[in-house]
């Protein structure tokens, strides 16, 4: 097929056509790579948290059967498998439930294939929405990142990190579109519903997304108050409050079920005190002394909490919280800073660490494995550059550039809150990676704007930049630098 671009077509249209062609090629390349890499994942047994997500999906599918069928609802099964220890919100399990409704004994290759297709569709939706809201070249950069081999291997796993990252992109693009509407005074209640649903979807997929979800909803509320006037302001604020209400309403059933099951207050996850104790506390005090040596780092305090709860009738969640505080009594600012930096190191070091797990039998160190590691690490360096751009760039060119910059800053800063409270690892970056990819596109756009002959920045009208966003970006960039310097100074 030959695509002929007539010289009569305006340059801008030609550029878009060229970008769309590149985008189509990249998406096709991703599809091919996905298919080629799938055999490395298909038979790999569920690892770690995946077991919990798949188990919860099994219980949820049974719950649906019980609700629509003749069998009584087994709430005990739901409590044991969906709430379990209260660590994981069931976003991934909900995603898997349709498959298990049709095939209750789905094999591992079937589950992994289903997840691969589901994340592929989600990626396509995210890319198309980026194209629609931010433009085709932003979509192209995101699609380039979609070729990171380790990311594609993760795409067939049941961890929620990668899926949360893709839904986060949708939340970001919808929020940028909503901020434009706020400025135009046309934000509608339905926009608020959509944003609330996307924000809560990200949270259900990764409870660690709570800071960013709250941050982005507050940003919407702030902009609704600040950027619109008169009657339009009332409409915008109402839509923002609807987003918050939807977010809270969908969170509530989980919080109530988890709190009732565990006999203590659970908002999103019980893993925060465990994470704090494991990351920053004295490991010999995590159970008011050492935990049982035959239990893992995570199981030990939970088993202990359950034993104390049995002896006292109190909540295991409360016991875990108190034990974590006890374990942290000797934490100093210096030790905390060192642990946070070590966490960042684990977060950013060895992005292809998990690749050792994904290979056909006997092929753990073949050329494909080495290529996965090499190309993941190379592309990851670019993503780190994109992440730095997200956090530090202050854009003043036009409203959409600014809105994206502010939204991306809140999103990434919210995600990077995790190393401050929880042990990090090579599994968490896929959530932040799409945001970092958009940061690369932002950086490219900012550099192109410096070229001689680049279009002049908008100065009037709805596309003109706003001071609020400039201030917010500058505050974020300064805070990031200050926190980073402070961590290094305190860590000595």
């Amino acid at each position: 097929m030959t695509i002929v671009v007539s010289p009569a077509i305006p340059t801008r249209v030609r550029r878009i056509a060229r970008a769309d062609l590149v985008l189509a090629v990249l998406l096709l390349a991703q599809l091919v790579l996905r298919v080629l890499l799938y055999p490395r994942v298909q038979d790999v047994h569920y690892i770690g948290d995946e077991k919990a997500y798949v188990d919860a999906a099994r219980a949820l599918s049974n719950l649906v059967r019980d609700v629509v069928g003749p069998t009584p609802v087994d709430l005990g099964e739901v409590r044991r498998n969906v709430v379990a220890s209260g660590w994981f919100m069931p976003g991934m399990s909900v995603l898997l439930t349709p498959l298990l409704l049709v095939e209750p004994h789905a094999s591992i290759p079937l589950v992994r294939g289903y997840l691969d297709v589901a994340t592929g569709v989600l990626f396509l939706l995210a890319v198309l929405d980026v194209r629609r809201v931010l433009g085709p070249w932003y979509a192209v950069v995101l699609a380039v990142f979609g070729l990171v081999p380790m990311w594609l291997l993760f795409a067939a796993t049941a961890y929620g990190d990668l899926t949360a990252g893709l839904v986060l992109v949708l939340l970001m693009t919808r929020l940028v579109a909503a901020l434009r509407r706020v400025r135009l005074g046309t934000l509608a209640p339905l926009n608020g519903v959509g944003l609330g649903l996307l924000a809560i979807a990200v949270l259900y997929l990764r409870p660690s997304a709570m800071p960013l979800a709250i941050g982005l909803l507050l940003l919407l509320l702030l902009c609704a108050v600040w950027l619109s006037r008169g009657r339009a302001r009332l409409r915008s604020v109402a839509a923002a409050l609807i987003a918050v209400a939807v977010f809270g309403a969908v969170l509530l059933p989980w919080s109530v079920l988890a709190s009732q099951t565990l006999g203590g207050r659970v908002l999103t996850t019980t893993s925060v005190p465990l994470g704090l104790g494991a990351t920053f506390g004295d490991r010999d005090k995590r159970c008011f002394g050492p935990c049982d040596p035959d239990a893992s780092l995570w199981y030990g305090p939970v088993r202990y909490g359950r034993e104390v709860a049995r002896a006292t009738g109190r909540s295991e969640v409360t016991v875990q919280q108190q034990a974590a505080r006890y374990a942290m009594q000797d934490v100093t600012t210096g030790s905390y800073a060192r642990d946070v930096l070590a966490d960042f190191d684990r977060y950013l070091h060895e992005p292809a660490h998990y690749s050792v797990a994904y290979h056909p039998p006997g092929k753990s160190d073949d050329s494909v494995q080495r290529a996965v590691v090499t190309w993941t690490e190379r592309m990851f360096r670019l993503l780190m550059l994109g992440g730095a751009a997200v956090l530090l760039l202050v854009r003043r060119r036009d409203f959409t550039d600014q809105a994206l910059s502010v939204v991306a800053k809140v999103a990434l800063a919210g995600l990077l809150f995790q190393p401050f409270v929880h042990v990090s690892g090579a599994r968490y970056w896929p959530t932040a990676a799409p945001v970092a990819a958009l940061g690369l596109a932002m950086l490219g756009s900012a550099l192109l704007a410096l070229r001689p002959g680049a279009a002049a920045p908008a100065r009037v009208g709805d596309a003109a930049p706003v001071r609020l966003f400039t201030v917010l970006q500058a505050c974020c960039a300064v805070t990031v630098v200050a926190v980073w310097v402070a961590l290094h100074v305190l860590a000595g």
Partner: protein
Amino acid sequence: MAVGVLVLAVIVAISPSRGRASPLGIYRPPVPTETLASKCFPLPDGVRLDFPHQVRSDASVGHGRRRLVVQYDLVGAATVVARLTDALTTAGFTAVPGSVGGGLRFDRGDVGPVEATVEPYQHLPGGSIVRGQVVLDLPVTPVGSASRQCADPGVTKRGAGG
């Protein structure tokens, strides 16, 4: 969108006829049988701890002695001392004045000396459920049950530090 909802409705409708999934429930640590109630390594005959507690470690420490660490909950050290003294004297032990390590010392002819040291934890968080520990120095106890759980360190707390 409408097609998606329709497909989902069909899936839900046929789901009861497709059988039932079998969750394994393996990602939740089970609560092991209470250590002393397991009777694997019991306390001397007739001794029952009458305060909320959990055994944290149990070990033979040589010279025919056993070191049992039990955390106490919800009550203060004075209450634990009183209830422990009561439990041991009710079981036929006699309080012996002048312990070596500052603890409570008891004796019973068929068992020998037993010493208990009550150690409240320092710097506890406000409203702490767990308050401290009792370290019991006892004669070694042979395994008291043939149950398989007596080989489970989660139950016996044997092989544990502290």
